[in-house]
């Protein structure tokens, strides 16, 4: 088994990021929730941009950033 690496995505409306590894516990998405398993009707919790207007990114966190992201 070689699981797919976790993806990071950024909202093109406001820059809010979704990290599959971290999920969004504050918004009911457990860590490890795959992007594909989030309903298509889901929208950015900050700005309401639809799910299809998020873009996958390959950008690392600044120091301490992943802790802040998991609490977003």
């Amino acid at each position, binding site marked *: 088994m070689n699981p797919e690496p976790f993806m990071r995505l950024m909202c093109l409306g406001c820059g809010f990021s979704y990290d599959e590894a971290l999920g969004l516990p504050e918004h009911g998405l457990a860590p490890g929730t795959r992007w594909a398993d989030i309903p298509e009707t889901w929208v950015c919790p900050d700005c309401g941009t639809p799910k299809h207007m998020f*873009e996958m*990114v390959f950008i690392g966190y*600044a120091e301490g950033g992943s802790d802040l992201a998991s609490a977003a």
Partner: protein
Amino acid sequence: MSKSFIIRDHERGHDTIRSDGTRSSYIAGHPDGFVTRASSFNFHDYQSGRPGFGPVRVFGDEIFHGAGCGYNMHPHHNFVICAFVFEGQLTHINTAGEGMVDQLRAGDYYVFSAGSGGKHSELSVTSEDMHAIYLWLMPRQLFLPPTYHRAHFDYRRRRNTIVQLVGDADTALPIPQDLRVSRLMADAGRSFTYTLRSRGHGAYIFVREGSATVDGVALGRRDSAGFSDRDDPAITIDIGEDDSDIIVVETIMIDDDNIKAWEHDHAGH
């Protein structure tokens, strides 16, 4: 292989966004305020154009009409947002760090890196229309500490020379990305060369006022062109009219699957 594209003024996404109905929570200045926005790249309702250029996702040529018009407080993360003011007065308020209230006039510009999060509001508080170009780009790292920097471009003293406003030059505003924004105000008959940093860098060149022939391509007011993957790093800019005003965004061309897919589907565009 060298790649280029042209976006004519009318090919941009042209939107008028009024401060009414549900939009009045987003657009300030109800009932008379409205924003006109010409987007070079896909943004909000405009989704039929190019997705971006390198890490750049928004190049918005905007006018706030009516006293009190602009954008009410709304949140951002990660995006680095730059504004360059050309007419009128822009009041910028952000909650990042200690918070900031700033007023920008013609020639002033800022770099707001939203990083780990902050809200901002952009308002024109005088009766004069406010004209600014907004540039948004993806940062080098996610959840950076938010920052705000601002400066002024003095066109009287910096004429007929390419001036780097944002980037790594002395006195340029710092930005957390391999990207430089330069401005050239110049007169008819003058010729300039913009030299790209490396083969991995490209340039998006926007003619705000006047006209210019850029790498052999004739560009009028509000036309623009992008150049990347060039054999020759030198891009020639021949100025067509007095008081021409050219914006050059040079950036690392990140390996972006969305942009590649779009270019594949729109080959020859």
